[in-house]
C-alpha cells in the first residue's frame, strides 16, 4: 500500500488554541505530519490530546491558529470546496426521513450528479457495505452497526480522495466493532482511499493502520509515530499474531510514557479537566 508514495496530507507547524487571551487552551502545538496516498493512519491518545481537533483541521471544519495544512497541494479549505473529503462521525448522522438509499445519494444530490449516476453509485456503495437489500428501509429501522455502515457508504459515494473517520465505531459493542474493523479493511483494500482514523482503542488502531500516530495531552502533541508492519490483508488471524501483540504493547507504552510523570496532577491539569467538562 505504500508503493504510491505521493503525499496527500502535509501538516507543518500546526497549532490550535481555543478561548480568549487569559483563558486560553492550547489544543494542539507544533504538529508536523505527512500522510501518503493509500495510507491508513490512526490518531490515538488520551481525551483532550486534540486528535479530533487535528482531524477537523484536516477536514477544514475548523482552522489552525498557526501553521499550514496542505491536502494534495492545496489548502484544506480549497480541498473541502473541491469535495475531496468523505466524513464519518461517531454518530451515523443519517436523515430519518430519507430511505437508506436516499441517504447514500445525499452528497451526490447536492453535488449535482444525475439520477442514473446517483442510483448506480448508491447501489454499488450499499453492496460494498453489504446492505444491498436495505436500500428502501429507513435508518431508524436499522441496528447501530448497520447505520454506521450506511454512513460509510454515504462518505464513499462521491469517491473522495480522503476518508476522515472520527471514532466511527466508538458507540458500538465490542463484537460489532471487530466485525466492522474487518469490513473497513476490505473496503479500504477495494477502494484504495487514504483513511485518517481517530480512535480510543489501541487494538483497533494497531489492527487497522499502516501507521499509528500516538498523541499526548496538555498541550496536544505527537509523541510517537509507530509503523505497523503487519502483513496485508489484515484478517481475523492478524489479531492472533505475535507481531500484533508487540505493536499493541509498543503503542500502549508510548501512550503511558506521556501520562503525567509523578501521577500528581498540577494546577494546569485541573484547569484543563474543567475546561473539557465545560466543552
Amino acid at each position, binding site marked *: 500500500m505504500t508503493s504510491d508514495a505521493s503525499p496527500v496530507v502535509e501538516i507543518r507547524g500546526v497549532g490550535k488554541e481555543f478561548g480568549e487571551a487569559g483563558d486560553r487552551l492550547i489544543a494542539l502545538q507544533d504538529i508536523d505530519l505527512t500522510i501518503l496516498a493509500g495510507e491508513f493512519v490512526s490518531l490515538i491518545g488520551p481525551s483532550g490530546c486534540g486528535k479530533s481537533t487535528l482531524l477537523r483541521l484536516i*477536514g477544514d*471544519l475548523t482552522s489552525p491558529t498557526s501553521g499550514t495544512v496542505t491536502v494534495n497541494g492545496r489548502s484544506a479549505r480549497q480541498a*473541502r*470546496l*473541491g*469535495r475531496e*473529503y468523505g*466524513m464519518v*462521525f461517531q*454518530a451515523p*448522522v443519517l*436523515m*430519518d*426521513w*430519507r430511505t437508506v438509499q436516499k441517504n447514500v445519494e*445525499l*452528497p451526490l*444530490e*447536492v*453535488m449535482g450528479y444525475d439520477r442514473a449516476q446517483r442510483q448506480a453509485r448508491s447501489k454499488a456503495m450499499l453492496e460494498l457495505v*453489504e*446492505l444491498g*437489500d*436495505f436500500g428502501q*428501509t*429507513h435508518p*431508524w*429501522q*436499522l*441496528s447501530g*452497526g*448497520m447505520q454506521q455502515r450506511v454512513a460509510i457508504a454515504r462518505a464513499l459515494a*462521491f469517491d473522495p480522495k480522503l476518508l476522515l473517520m472520527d471514532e466511527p465505531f466508538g458507540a458500538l459493542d465490542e463484537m460489532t466493532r471487530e*466485525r466492522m474493523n474487518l*469490513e473497513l479493511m476490505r473496503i479500504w483494500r477495494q477502494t484504495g482511499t487514504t483513511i485518517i482514523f481517530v480512535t480510543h482503542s489501541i487494538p483497533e488502531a494497531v489492527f487497522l493502520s499502516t501507521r499509528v500516530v500516538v498523541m499526548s495531552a496538555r498541550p496536544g502533541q505527537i509523541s510517537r509515530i509507530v509503523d505497523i508492519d503487519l502483513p496485508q490483508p489484515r484478517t481475523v488471524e492478524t489479531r492472533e499474531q505475535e507481531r500484533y501483540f508487540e505493536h499493541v504493547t509498543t503503542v500502549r507504552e508510548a501512550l503511558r510514557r506521556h501520562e503525567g510523570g509523578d501521577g500528581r496532577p498540577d494546577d494546569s491539569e485541573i484547569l484543563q479537566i474543567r475546561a473539557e467538562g465545560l466543552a
Partner: protein
Amino acid sequence: MAIPAAPTLALSNAGRASPTALSRRARILAILGLFIGLLVVWEGAKWLGGDPWRLHGVVLGVPIDYEHFPPLKWRITTDLALPHVWEIAGAFVQPAQRNGPLLIQVLLGNAVFTFGEALVGFAIGATLGLILGIAFTQSRTAERAFVPYVVASQTVPIVAIAPLVVIFLPVGWLAVAIIAAYLTFFPVTMGALRGLRSADPRAVELMRSYAVSPRQILWKLRLPSALPYLFASLRIAASASVVGAIIGELPSGIPYGLGSSILNFKQYYVSGPSKLWATIIVAAMLGLVFVGLVRAVEALVTRGRYRRIET
C-alpha cells in the same frame, strides 16, 4: 452480516404496527366515553338544580305522568342558561325562522362560508409564518429585531383590531381572512423557528464538508427536520384560524358565516337559547374538521418517513 440484522427489522416493524391499531380503538372509546360523560354531567346538574319538568303522555300504550322537582336551584342550570341536551339536538331539525330552512341547513351553509374565510386566512398566515421562521433562522439580527414585535402582536386583543381591519379593507370576506391570518401566523412562525433550529449540528457539519450552499442546507436538511414541528404548529394554527374568522365576522356586518349566526341567535336568545348552543357546537365541529384535515395532510406527507413522535 445481513442475516442477524433481519429479525431486528421485522421486530421493529411489528412493534410499530400493533400499538397503533390498539390505540386507535382506545381513542375512539375515550372520545365516546367523554362525550357521554359530558351529557351525564350536563343533565345531572339540571336534575339537581335546574327548572322543574313534567313528562306527560302515552308511551307504548302506557300512560305516563311524571313530574320532577329539582332539590336545588342554581342560576346556571336554568332552561334559559343551559337548555336540555335534547332541546339543543331538536333545535337542529327545526326551522331557524318561521317557514324558513332547518337550523342545521342554515348553520352548515354558514360553517362552509366561515371555513372558506378561515382557509384563506390560514394559507396567508402559514405562508407568512414560514417565511418569517426561515428569515429568522438565516439572520440572528432579524430574529432579535423582529421577534419582540411578533410576540407583542399576539398580546393585542384581536377583538380590538378586528373592527379596524374591517374598516380599512372594503372587501368583507378578505378582511375576515386577514384577521384569521393574524391569529395564524404566530404559532407557525414559532413552530418553523423551533423546527428549523432542530437540525442536527453534526448534519450541518456534514453538509459543510460537501461544500454546499446555505440554500441547499435549508432545502435538504433544515426544512425536512422542521416538518414535525411545523405540522404541530399548523394544527394549532388551523383551530386559531376558525376563531379568527368568527371574531372577524362579528364587526364585519356580513350576513353569512357562523359569526352572523352567533350575533343573530344571541339577539333572540330568550326566545330560543338552543339555537345559540347549536351554533357553538357547529363552530367547535368546524375547528375539529379543519384540524383533522391538517392531520390528514401531515399523515400523507410524513407517512413512514419519520420516527413516530406522539404529539
